[in-house]
């Protein structure tokens, strides 16, 4: 958080616009001060069409996208491609924390239902409660009686678990099947490094071979 701020002293001889660009780039995830500088000077030397295109593209992601009013995925049309697709199974809704999680799930092509993006997870110590993520909208959506199964695909960290437990508490009284993605050992890992919770869950979720 704090270490990303570049003080004016660190770039004493830099022109103001460059310095501003470095500061903006430095705010991006994974871009440190050195990288930000490198990118800024690269852009300075790049042809104007390229920088123009980049600037317009960046501007367009805010101007030309919106959230799908049904599932809250990011979309450039009024409803997202998944919600508009009649081939998708309308009786299943998979709950994810972020729009990027949909990409990961879609990549596998294993799931043919719909999604619901919460845009976050419950994290009490950050002051994020149930009303700060899209839970009310989910419950509204489940009232239409079309949904037969809700699949919880929140992260397996503490916040994702809390969110899943809370949704279970809200959805279990409804007449809807509620499932959670299996939790266990990730592919390609070694048992000896696994933590207690992962091993416990993997054991509980063991299946016939």
């Amino acid at each position, binding site marked *: 958080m704090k*270490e990303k701020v570049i003080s004016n002293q660190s770039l004493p001889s830099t022109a103001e616009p460059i310095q501003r660009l470095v500061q903006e780039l430095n705010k991006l*995830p994974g871009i440190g001060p050195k990288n930000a500088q490198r990118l800024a000077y690269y852009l300075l030397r790049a042809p104007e069409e390229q920088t123009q295109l980049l600037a317009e593209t960046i501007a367009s992601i805010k101007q030309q996208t919106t959230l799908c009013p049904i599932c809250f995925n990011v979309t450039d049309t009024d409803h997202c491609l998944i919600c508009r697709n009649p081939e998708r199974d309308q009786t299943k809704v998979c709950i994810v924390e972020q729009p990027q999680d949909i990409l990961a799930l879609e990549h596998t092509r294993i799931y043919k239902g719909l999604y619901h993006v919460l845009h976050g997870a419950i994290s*009490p*110590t950050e002051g994020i409660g*149930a009303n700060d993520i899209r839970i009310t909208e989910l419950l509204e959506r489940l009232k239409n009686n079309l949904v037969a199964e809700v699949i919880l695909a929140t992260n397996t*960290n503490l916040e994702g678990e*809390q969110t899943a437990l809370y949704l279970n*508490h809200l959805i279990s009284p409804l007449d809807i099947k509620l499932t959670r993605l299996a939790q266990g050992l*990730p592919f390609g890992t070694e048992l000896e490094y696994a*933590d207690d919770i992962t091993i416990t869950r993997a054991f509980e979720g063991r299946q016939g071979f």
Partner: protein
Amino acid sequence: MSRPRTYQTEAIIIKKIKLGEADRILTLYTPILGKIQAVAKGIRRPKSKLAGHLELLTHSTVSFARGRNLDTIIGSQTIDSFLPLKSDLSLTAYALYTTELINQFTAEYIENRPLFQLLLETLHQLCLTDNRELLLRHFELHLFKEIGYRPQLRECVVCRQPLQPVLNYFSSDTGGMLCPDCRLTQTIVYPLSVDALKVLRWLQDNDFITISRLKIEPKLSHELERVSRNYIKYLLEREVKSVAWLDSLKQSTQLI
């Protein structure tokens, strides 16, 4: 002689912040180093060997390599994952409240072994007891003591006379009780019933096991909660964030 490049300690993970693409900055509470921060690299990737051992509310043995700014975590092994606690919505909320208090009330690199023990014991007891509110009040009172804000509950902080079994007053500003005669010397005071004062003294003087069977009426429990929260707010000069979630859960479970 130079300091060793790596070191190891047991720790409880009390806070995490995302860093870059896949890393986190963790805040850990330890017996000897007190509160420390360190970077856990790649911890947000599914194949991270560290992730499960470094989740919030986990008691682990952790190894570090010294860095220029922050130290880096190079290994970790779970001692206790507190699984029963993490599988229960309201227990997790209670536990997060205790770790948030530890984080807010401590500075880095200040050894406080009794405070580490208090946190560890409270997390263990949370998994065992049904008397959660009382456990929380016990934790708060002993936390106050360990950080040097032990409230005076025996005598009036102004006239120094022993308190009589009547309605007395708690004052956060003076960190203690006022007798009815002295209550007007302070602008903000909270009335405290004889029973509430009695419970606070028991909590202050005993370990949790001794008093864990004490049954408290909801009204008395609220009175204790109110006085303790006000004192915390006064000391911190801000709200404890996890309180909102804890309260909303308490409300929604009452409705069912």
